[in-house]
């Protein structure tokens, strides 16, 4: 079984290599976004030395690392699942001797590894030449960051699985997929560090899994927190992974019983 999944990761990795146009446009899009927020934050800071506990230099570094983390955890498997359901392919997938959701997850992982190696790593190196940037000082901190990043990937993928599974019940859910993407981008701390939000909002977001997707790994990367606190955050991420397994299992069970293939 492990061999099958490894092969699936490899295949997705290779197919990412084959679709090079997507790769180039992806690079440009991340460049555009990081650039936009770089200027926006510059204007927002203006004369202010520090906002929300971050200096302007820390903020630009935060924006850069947040987008680079996103390159790894981001995937479109919700859209892929929706398409499989709508086109009826999911019926074939279900009779195959593997777990459909696990397949989607490892495919997303293959995609993530591709973007981490060919995209985020060179990207962050380039950025570090352009703006003042500090990498984690110790090997230990690097390890913590990578640990947290993998968990972030798992949580984001779980949320995508959930959104994708909704297609079984709603038939068309492009709107929800899009809204989910915007919500995750905002509440994960990608465009705004969570520390910028007012206190009551921060409390509310503590009950949601989104900040575990980006804010936690980014905090660990910047070295703004002790390694004890880093372990705490990683622990929280693990808890979220476990919690999210529950609705996925339930929805998947129900989805299999009520699959309606539209003209598949």
């Amino acid at each position, binding site marked *: 079984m492990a061999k099958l999944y490894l092969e699936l990761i490899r295949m997705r990795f290779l197919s990412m290599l084959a679709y090079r*146009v*997507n790769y*180039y*446009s*992806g690079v*440009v*899009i991340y460049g*555009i*976004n990081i*650039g*936009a927020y770089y*200027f*926006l934050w*510059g*204007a*927002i*800071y*203006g004369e*202010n030395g520090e*906002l*929300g506990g971050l200096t302007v230099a820390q903020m630009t570094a935060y924006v850069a690392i947040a987008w680079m983390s996103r390159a790894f955890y981001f995937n479109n498997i919700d859209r892929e699942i929706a398409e499989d359901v709508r086109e009826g392919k999911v019926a074939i997938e279900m009779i195959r001797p593997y777990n459909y959701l696990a397949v989607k997850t490892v495919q997303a992982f293959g995609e993530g590894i591709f973007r981490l190696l060919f995209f985020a790593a060179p990207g962050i190196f380039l950025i570090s030449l352009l703006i003042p940037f500090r990498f984690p000082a110790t090997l230990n901190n690097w390890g913590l960051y990578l640990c947290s990043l993998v968990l972030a990937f798992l949580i984001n993928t779980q949320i995508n699985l959930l959104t994708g599974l909704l297609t079984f019940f*709603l*038939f*068309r*859910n*492009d*709107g*929800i997929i*899009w*809204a989910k993407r*915007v*919500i995750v*981008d*905002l509440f994960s701390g990608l*465009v*705004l560090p969570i520390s*910028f*939000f*007012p206190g009551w*909002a921060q409390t509310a977001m503590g009950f949601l899994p989104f900040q575990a997707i980006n804010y936690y790994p980014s905090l660990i990367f910047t070295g703004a927190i002790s390694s004890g606190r880093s372990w705490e955050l990683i622990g929280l991420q693990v808890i979220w992974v476990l919690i999210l397994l529950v609705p996925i299992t339930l929805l998947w069970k129900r989805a299999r019983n009520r699959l309606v293939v539209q003209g598949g």
Partner: protein
Amino acid sequence: MQPQQDAMHVIRIFARYMGQYFKTRFAYRTDFLSDLFSNLVSEMMNLVFILVVFQHVPFMNGWSRDEIIFIYGFFLVPYALYSMFFDFWDFNERYIIRGEMDRILTRPIHNLAQIVLESLSPDRIFGVITGLLIMGYAAVRLDLEIAWYDPLVFLVLAVSATLIYGGVYTAVAAISFFSDSKTGISPMIYNIQQYGRYPVDVYNHVIRFVLTYILPFAFVGVYPAAYFLRKETWYTYAALTPVMGVIFFSLGVLIWNWGVKKYRGAGS
């Protein structure tokens, strides 16, 4: 056919398509509602960004919170209008890869009009309403003076801005006629478009130049909105909006027609 009759003909077809559209939408009511809801959520998220940021600073490069909110509200109106008529996001896949374009070419009305008809989404009118509400909120807080002709000016500016979007995305969709593979260019343009929501003087001059003359998204947000905010430095640009609208929409249609001539068919 006489040109006048021709126009009437298109309008009648338009009405028919609208009818069909609502029938299909109401067949899947949850989907319809969830689309409305998700659009609203995406529109609100950007507002949240502005609100949170301005809890920490009073001004952004000299622009106040309510001014930025006003610009965002204005931006939503042409954005919703454009996505009502020119939503060519999946044009490549829907028409080129699947060979549907061949069917379009056999239809009696102009091919672009036919495609606009098929991708109409009248429910985006709610986006216009959201935009107007946000603008209204900001206008009241800013105590903006509104002259009797301002609604008219607004209409002209909003329609011109929509034409800019329409032109740019028509041109982007037309690229599919020349290259039959996915180019990934529309997500790219979409991301650049996000820059138009904020005052352009925030960015460096290269980006400002691009947003003014190459992909003139600044004319969809900050320039026309500056007129209502009575920012006189930007009046010339605000006045240029209709000109840019006509130029870019014509360019879009020209590129489209040229593309259709080059089109050889790709489907099976």
